């Protein structure tokens, strides 16, 4: 049985009310969901709260999910919408802290001359996060999966059940929109 088919079965069980199956889905997606939120808002505690809320909402809405194979994209959208709402409630993105942030900062430091270097201030990070949140849902999801998670376009297409050409097109339009919104950080 393929990985996708196995996951569809687990999703179907969770839809029917099986909490153990939902736990299996958490094992698979908990880390990535937490990482996305953590990356976007820069605070461990809030990221944990939002990740928790993401899975609770997913559990409640799961019976209404039409395509079990689209679970991964659907779950990410719940997380991204919750993060967007949290950011838009006029709460500033918090500065980096803790061990994980040191890891992030080291990554930025590896690219001293590049644009990522400019992201060290929380204001710049907030601008990027806000720009991503302003994308339409389709573009936002693909941008997050490709640029933040580092997934190849073919894998994104498989996970979302859309052709590679559509993934590329959403990626291009999303990047075009971000380039305009983030002009001060990307223009030489």
């Amino acid at each position: 049985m393929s990985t996708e088919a196995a996951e569809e079965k687990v999703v179907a069980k969770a839809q029917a009310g099986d909490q153990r199956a939902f736990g299996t889905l958490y094992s698979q997606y908990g880390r990535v969901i937490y990482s996305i939120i953590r990356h976007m808002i820069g605070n461990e505690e809030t990221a944990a709260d939002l990740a928790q809320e993401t899975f609770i909402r997913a559990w409640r809405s799961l019976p209404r999910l039409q395509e079990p194979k689209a679970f991964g994209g659907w779950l990410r959208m719940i997380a991204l919408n919750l993060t967007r709402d949290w950011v838009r409630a006029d709460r500033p993105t918090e500065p980096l802290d803790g061990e994980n942030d040191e890891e992030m900062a080291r990554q930025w430091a590896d690219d001293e001359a590049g644009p990522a270097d400019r992201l060290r201030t929380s204001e710049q990070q907030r601008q990027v996060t806000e720009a991503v949140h302003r994308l339409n849902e389709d573009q936002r999801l693909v941008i997050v999966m490709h640029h933040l998670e580092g997934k190849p376009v073919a894998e994104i297409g498989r996970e979302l059940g859309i052709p590679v050409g559509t993934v590329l097109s959403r990626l291009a339009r999303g990047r075009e929109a971000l380039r305009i919104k983030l002009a001060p950080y990307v223009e030489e």
Partner: protein
Amino acid sequence: MDCAEILKILPDYTVGALEEHIAAHVRAHLAECESCRRELRALENTGALLGPMPAVDAPRDLWAAIQAQLEPRARRKPAWRVYWKPTVAVAAAAAILIAVLLAWPLMQAPVPLTPDLPVLATAEGTSYAEAQIAGAWDQPLADEASLALAMAVIEPENSGEMIQ
């Protein structure tokens, strides 16, 4: 291709979404156009600005916190179990309504009392009912008491003779 056309498809070029022969035109233009090369770098910088994000482990107790808040959910019933009760109720209500509608004219019409019922006359001057009762009287299994009672209702003055 001029700059306006190139700029329009440059985002697609940066993500590798163009067909090879179009991408070749873009490459040729970029080799000679500093302005479009600057735009290409801005688009590439945008991608670099976004990530990749470092994957970090979620807190160890996160699943326990989630699980504590998962409400038990009733397993889904098959569609026929969900819908059969309302369906039966509706069918029963419809049947009662039809029965009432059919019976309504009968309930509204005045029911004539027995003495007013028309009695068919026979050629010999006796009524149809009298002829039937007289005919039945000679049958081996005739209920003479019932027949006499019927005759008494139709023709009270002659009924005494038949009973005797």
